[in-house]
């Protein structure tokens, strides 16, 4: 058994787990944060995407012990006091989800993408950046629209703040 300490959504948490425990299982089963999903066993679907030290990663392909000491943000950590994060709001507005299974990973991926490309996203870039996330429902069209809308809104917000 190993002791794992993480800062998850701003809160420092510790727990015991086996060395072989995947980060996604630690998050879901030890911390009870079930918004992060598991959609495959081949590291390809992206339903499990969280941010580790500010970068999107597949939590199904990282051991909890590898992540120990890092700062993790899950889908539960995005929304403010009763208010959706702009990316979540854009997915709602643009119908970027149907069954919703891929959505936590899609939203975390979109936030990471906007952090890196902030304000410079175009459709081709969004589609290329979604390479690691599979959606069986939407056909991606409305997801792409939602990401572009959120990017525009967030960069307008940044400009207004400057």
């Amino acid at each position: 058994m190993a002791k794992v300490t993480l800062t998850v959504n701003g809160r420092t948490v510790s727990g015991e787990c086996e060395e072989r425990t995947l980060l996604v299982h630690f998050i879901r089963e030890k911390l009870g944060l079930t918004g992060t999903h598991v959609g495959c066993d081949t590291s390809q679907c992206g339903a499990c995407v969280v941010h580790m030290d500010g970068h999107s990663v597949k939590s199904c392909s990282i051991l909890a012990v590898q992540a120990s000491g890092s700062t993790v943000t899950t889908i539960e950590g995005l929304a403010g006091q009763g208010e959706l994060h702009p990316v979540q709001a854009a997915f709602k507005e643009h119908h970027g989800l149907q069954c919703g299974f891929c959505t936590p990973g899609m939203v975390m991926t979109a936030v990471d993408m906007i952090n890196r490309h902030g304000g410079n996203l175009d459709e081709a870039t969004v589609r290329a950046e979604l390479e690691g996330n599979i959606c069986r429902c939407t056909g991606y069209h409305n997801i792409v629209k939602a990401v572009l809308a959120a990017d525009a809104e967030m960069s307008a917000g940044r400009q207004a703040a400057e």
Partner: protein
Amino acid sequence: MYATSYHRPSSISEAAALLAATDEAKYVSGGMTLIPTMKQRLAAPAALVDLRHVADMKGIHIDGSRVRIGAATPHAEVAASSALRSACPAVTVLAGLIGDPHVRHMGTIGGSIANNDPAADYPALALALGATIVTDRREIAADDFFTGLFETALEPGELVTAITFDLPEKAGYAKFRNPASRYAMTGVFVARRGGSVRVAVTGAGADGVFRQADMEAALAGNWSADALSGIAVPSSGLLSDIHGDSDYRANLVKVMAKRAVLAAG
């Protein structure tokens, strides 16, 4: 996944000592190959020695014409390096075509080179640039390093610490990605230095990455995509699988080589 244990060294010597201390121990760098393989129970190391916190194995250094990339440097850092982009854009292009953003945030150049997957991208770069693989024991020329499918010249426990190479005058990479896995169905890296040209092909060879001598000779005489038009790529020795047979891959080698030369300019 079978049970394992976990160790986190902070130096190269500590990492090598930890690996030697346990039978059946393995290094884990980005884990983007090893952890999925352990999940499938195709690998069952008794201990994992994590390289992500070894500072001496990280970062990109350009000193005149010599480039050194630490083995534990993630693909995303290489892809985003503005110094590398201006010195040799083919390197950043290649890194940016690996997998997807999440894989690139974790996966590392050292892990990719050590793993020598026949469809991986970095082996083509290392071979075409005549790179040197630096380990905790010695320096190995790329020509001697990649010895077969998932096989390298590394001895048991030998740790890749960095990859170094001289900047080429021109270089280009073109990749035909498998639409599901994103790995190369065929990727060709071309590089020119003085009168010498090297062409390395990944994804296509039944024995892994290889150099294409006919193309090297043709491009040394005439650095243009047209110079490749007359070359017949033999399909013998090329992979045949559900994704494409060896004739199809032979054609891809030629098409990707032309695109790589065009990209190099």
